[in-house]
């Protein structure tokens, strides 16, 4: 299944601005992106809608991981999925230029918490995104698929339009 992720430039910039703020003790920030899915001729499309920032007091000091959020942060995201009928994508930033990818810890944690969103919206895809300073990457748990699918194409819609796609990507 080929999955394309799209986000408006203004929303993308707003997420960057939010996630790159310093926190009192957390080494990085995170948030949740509310999205709506659609089917395309060749797979799926995830359209970003709104960003749910994580308030400062929802981070938990943790000696092992640089960033841990409390259960209230997760509850807010699940409530949004339920109330607004949206897909939820966890987002964080890696502070470097170029193609980002998830750390081993990111992958392990995501595999545990992302499927939880199916408890409230089982028919919708959910997932996780990682931004670098100029690119992004993501994994999507699409209903009916055992394993998360990597976004093969990611588009930032603004002026200019920025499209990153795998060489094998085909629109039709």
């Amino acid at each position, binding site marked *: 299944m080929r999955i*394309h992720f*799209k*986000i*408006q*430039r*203004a*929303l993308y910039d707003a997420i960057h601005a939010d996630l790159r703020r310093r926190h009192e003790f957390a080494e990085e920030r995170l948030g949740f992106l*509310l*999205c*709506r*899915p*659609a*089917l*395309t*001729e*060749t797979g799926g*499309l*995830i*359209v*970003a*809608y709104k960003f749910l920032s994580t308030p400062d007091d929802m981070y938990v000091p943790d000696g092992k991981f640089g960033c841990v959020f409390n259960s209230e942060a997760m509850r807010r995201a699940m409530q949004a999925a339920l109330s*607004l*009928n*949206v897909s939820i994508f966890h987002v964080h930033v890696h502070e470097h230029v170029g193609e980002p990818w998830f750390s081993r810890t990111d992958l392990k944690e995501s595999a545990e918490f992302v499927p939880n969103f199916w408890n409230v919206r089982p*028919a*919708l895809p959910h997932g996780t995104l990682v931004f670098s300073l100029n690119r992004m990457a993501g994994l999507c748990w699409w209903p009916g698929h055992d394993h998360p699918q990597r976004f093969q194409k990611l*588009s930032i*819609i*603004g*002026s*200019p*339009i920025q*499209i990153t*796609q795998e060489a094998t*990507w*085909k*629109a*039709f």
Partner: protein
Amino acid sequence: MEGVLARQSFLGENSPEILGGTAALIAGLGGGGSHVAQQLAHLGLGNFIFIDPDKIEFPNLNRTVGATYEDALVGTPKVEVAARLVRSINPSARIKAIVGTWQENIRTVRGADVVFGCIEGFAAKVELERVCRAALTPLIDIGMDVHRARPYSISGQVVLSMPGCPCFICMGHVRETDCAIEEQRYGHAGGTPQVVWSNGALASTAVGVMVQLLTPWSDVTVASFLGYDGDLSTISPDSRYVNRRIGECPHFNSTSAYGDPFFA
């Protein structure tokens, strides 16, 4: 397309890859859409989706680029004429030619990076915009009209509907009353009046808008609403848009306006 694009290198070092990887959908392959298809082929666009239910007839020959007398004689589908034209310029272009309506092919529409709306009718334009907005796809609409004045007057427009920006209704491109009276407005010059030079001017402008979005050659903001005065032969920012105070678009700001509203 190696070497072919050398004269447009000012569009950027990686512009051949950007354009080669882009998928453009043209809804309507008549007077406007056929011009757009031809220009995109020359530009080095890699992926084309053509959607039009109609076949070439003799009255189309006054403006449809690539159409021949033979096509009108046998009734070649317009999308096949466009595909043939594009292949004659760039044999490696990937083309999906659909004889049908875009409404029957919504999933295909969602796969495009940019959509050219070369269709008639305000209601149809609004409908196509809704689908494009839901997929965060820029829609470039072109249209022309001939009115009774002096004794005839030609006008038209190129309108960019950019996700997150004012929509057709916000910009004054479409009014709700337009949909109701559009049938009465057309046809003053016999049939739906269309001429090749106006179509060409509008299509060229629309293609320029797309290129400026994908591989900008200047830092000038892409104009959203360009009006064409066919009598004066000018294209300039449309006063209907320029004189409006536009805030946040209220028409596409709910979750139901994003993705597939029927996706459970």
